[in-house]
């Protein structure tokens, strides 16, 4: 422990040097912007800025890039809450209850809770990263394709708890999402599936065009289709801060979201977006008033927003301790280290202690900066709601299209977003929820890959999923969840019958 503190002191010495501090700040600022802009997420932001870091030293480069990564998680909630556009993919869940809170005049509270939740989750998970990185990383490596498959299946079963309305409808939407996720090159045989000769479809339908279309563009269409335009809100200053009750309801979700997010984040190859979905489902399950979810529940903002921030720090565990990427973003950051002649690997902590501990310390500093940066911005951002819809909505459409195009510079992506916007509008008109589509589309390729990898490992023997203890445990939890879900739906079925009976009685009298 004393050694850790000593190392941390070394780290703060590095991180608080004006040169490094400046880059941490720039990273956080760019990250917030990247997060606020719809579509452009941390991967695009980091990729764009990677070449610019070649002229810096390794510590500054990595501090800058990490700042963008976790900064984007803070910024991503803003447009989700204010306009129902996910600023980056991991904020999809925040769109649901965050936007509902905004419609009830609690936009300021939602933004503030998202910022504080992100801060708590970010800081706590850096503590975990600092103390537990090497043992956790070795554990994470043992999670192979079968464990990943079991975990992803668990994520899918979570759907049973996600929607407010009919379970049948949300399962139908998830199935649609899974189908959309099948588009693209078959990872095991190299076949192009459902690409219709469009080379760009080889990579499948991107999450960004899908989410921006289904949420952002669809919302614009839904509002435009209403006979009377929605009232322009006049947020008042005293309404900006969360009430005591809202704080109380957020504490638990923030704590649980942090733990869940961190654990999911360390697993190599998992999708960090799942952290926010799982957190949402857990909060709904634990809530005394599950019916509030989807109608502006504070816990539905606090949990997922904390989870996606904690997942960011979790993702650094395998990267820093072992030099292996847990996802595309750490992979780009590993490349940045290699460009500077630092070979990332198990010896990094010994060979470059100033870099490692400086990086850890800069994450503490960065999270603090982001809190200070974001809380005052709440007051600024809610003013967006004052803008008349005639001006705001065209601007949203422009931002959506720009954001989607910026990710890959692909016009095909823009068309996908437009098509998804129309689809999302149709589904909203028919009272379907669109979040399960996004979850399905994200999970499908991962689920397929890990399933088929597992079978390739075992040469087609299905027992691999139950003979590995971790995979078996995860699957057992999944089955349990499914049974619980079924019980709820049977119970709801009774409610429905009772209600019908009551209604009939009402008709007779």
């Amino acid at each position, binding site marked *: 422990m004393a050694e850790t503190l000593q190392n941390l002191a070394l780290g703060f010495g590095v991180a608080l040097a004006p040169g490094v501090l400046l880059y941490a700040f720039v990273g956080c600022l760019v990250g917030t912007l990247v997060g606020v802009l719809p579509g452009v997420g941390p991967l695009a932001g980091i990729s764009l800025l990677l070449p610019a870091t070649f002229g810096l030293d390794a510590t500054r480069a990595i501090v800058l890039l990490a700042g963008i990564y976790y900064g984007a998680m803070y910024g991503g909630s803003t447009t989700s809450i204010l306009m129902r556009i996910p600023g980056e993919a991991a904020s999809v869940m925040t769109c649901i209850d965050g936007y509902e809170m905004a419609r009830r005049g609690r936009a300021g509270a939602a933004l503030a809770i998202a910022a504080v939740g992100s801060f708590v989750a970010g800081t706590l998970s850096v503590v975990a990263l600092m103390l537990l990185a090497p043992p956790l990383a070795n554990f994470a490596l043992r*999670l192979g394709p079968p464990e990943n498959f079991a975990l992803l299946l668990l994520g899918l079963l979570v759907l049973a708890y996600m929607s407010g309305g009919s379970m049948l409808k949300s399962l139908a939407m998830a199935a649609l999402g899974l189908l959309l996720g099948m588009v693209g*090159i078959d990872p095991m*045989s190299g076949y192009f599936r459902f690409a219709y000769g469009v080379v760009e479809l*080889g990579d499948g339908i991107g999450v960004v065009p899908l989410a921006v279309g289904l949420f952002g563009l669809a919302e614009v269409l839904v509002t435009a289709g209403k006979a009377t335009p929605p009232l322009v809100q006049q947020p008042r200053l005293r309404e900006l801060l969360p009430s005591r009750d809202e704080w109380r309801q957020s504490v638990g979700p923030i704590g649980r979201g942090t733990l869940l997010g961190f654990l999911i984040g360390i697993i190599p190859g998992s999708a960090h977006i799942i952290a926010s979905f799982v957190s949402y489902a857990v909060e709904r399950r634990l809530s005394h008033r599950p019916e509030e979810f989807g109608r502006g529940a504070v816990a539905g903002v606090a949990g997922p927003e904390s989870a996606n921030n904690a997942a960011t720090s979790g993702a650094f565990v*395998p990267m820093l301790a072992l030099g292996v990427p847990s996802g595309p973003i750490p992979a780009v950051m590993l490349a940045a280290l*290699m460009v500077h002649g630092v070979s990332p690997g198990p010896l990094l902590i010994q060979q470059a202690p100033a870099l490692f501990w400086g990086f850890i310390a800069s994450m503490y500093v960065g999270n603090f900066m982001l809190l200070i940066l974001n809380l005052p911005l709440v007051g600024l951002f809610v003013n967006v709601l004052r803008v008349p819809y005639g001006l705001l909505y065209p601007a949203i459409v422009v931002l959506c299209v720009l954001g989607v195009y910026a990710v*890959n510079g692909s016009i095909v992506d823009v068309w996908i977003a437009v098509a998804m916007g129309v689809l999302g509008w149709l589904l909203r008109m028919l009272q379907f929820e669109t979040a399960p589509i996004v979850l399905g589309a994200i999970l499908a390729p991962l689920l397929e890959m890990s399933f088929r990898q597992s079978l390739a*490992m075992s040469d087609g023997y299905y027992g691999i999923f139950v003979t590995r203890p971790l995979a078996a445990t995860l699957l057992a939890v999944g089955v349990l969840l499914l049974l619980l879900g079924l019980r709820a739906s049977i119970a709801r079925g009774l409610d429905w019958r009772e209600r019908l009976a009551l209604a009939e009685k009402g008709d007779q009298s």
Partner: protein
Amino acid sequence: MSRFASIILVLGACLAGAAGGARAQEPFPSRPITLVAPFPPGGVADLTARPVAAALERTLKNPVGVVNKTGAAGAVGMQSVATSKPDGYTLLLALSSISIIPEADKLFGRPPAFTVDQFAPIALISADPTILVVRTESPWKTAKEFIEDASKKPGQISYSSSGIYGTLHMAMELLSHAAGIKLRHVPHSGAGPALTALLGGHVDALASGPAVVLPHIKSGKLRALAGWGESRVAALPDVPTFKELGYPGAEFYIWAGVFAPRGTPEPVLARLREGLRAAVADPDFKAAMDKLETPIVFKQGEEFARFFAADAKRLTDGVRTVGKIEEKK
């Protein structure tokens, strides 16, 4: 620009070309050059393209910018260069996948995104042989033991790769073919995840570029058994090559080269070759490649064409040997 205007421009360019080959309308280069990296930032193509562009900018005294045009395992970016105007202002930084993608397209009977004939090779920049690594606690101490064990238990020893028909997959297939063994392939979504799978004990072996696995060899987690190169890897002088061990068919390099669209005028190509030759001698470029631990191997003109043809032959044969996956069972 409308399609009509572009037709006019293309026609104009043809006329200008016909009017007089020698009388160039403008000295090359006189405006910014774009070097397309068909993979995302942080990958081998991107990390090679950026120092190449910076050095070429100095030697040609003309701006050179890198553009990442990604998608479909590189096919999107390569296709865009293949169909761009052959004037030397749009270049491609390609990896060996340039030979693999058209062959895989052919295998599946789909219209090819591009063909190798659509490119004019300019110069090879780097070539790094892959090396065979296993975990230290695995039973195989030498490549010989590995191959003997594999021939005793066909299809039992597994390896991870960066993806189906990807470079790391092809390297292993060439070895399997040369040594007459059968290994079990578990594709992953990139070289990073493939390494993670080996370290985590989910597969038994991996063919990898040396730079990525060196830290793990040094820390004692992985053991290198043999290399696919013509000669040994400088950082691993004790690790033999498959060629030395009697498997000359197992030759494979992760290479990066610069290409122009076919039809680029010879004087322009000559100017680019000259510029690249000077660029690889640039001290900043050398320092950048040193940090990546990637050896500079420069070949141009005929020499590069021969290397490219031999490599393409090995790879297309490899793709055909692998064939379509589902036809195997």
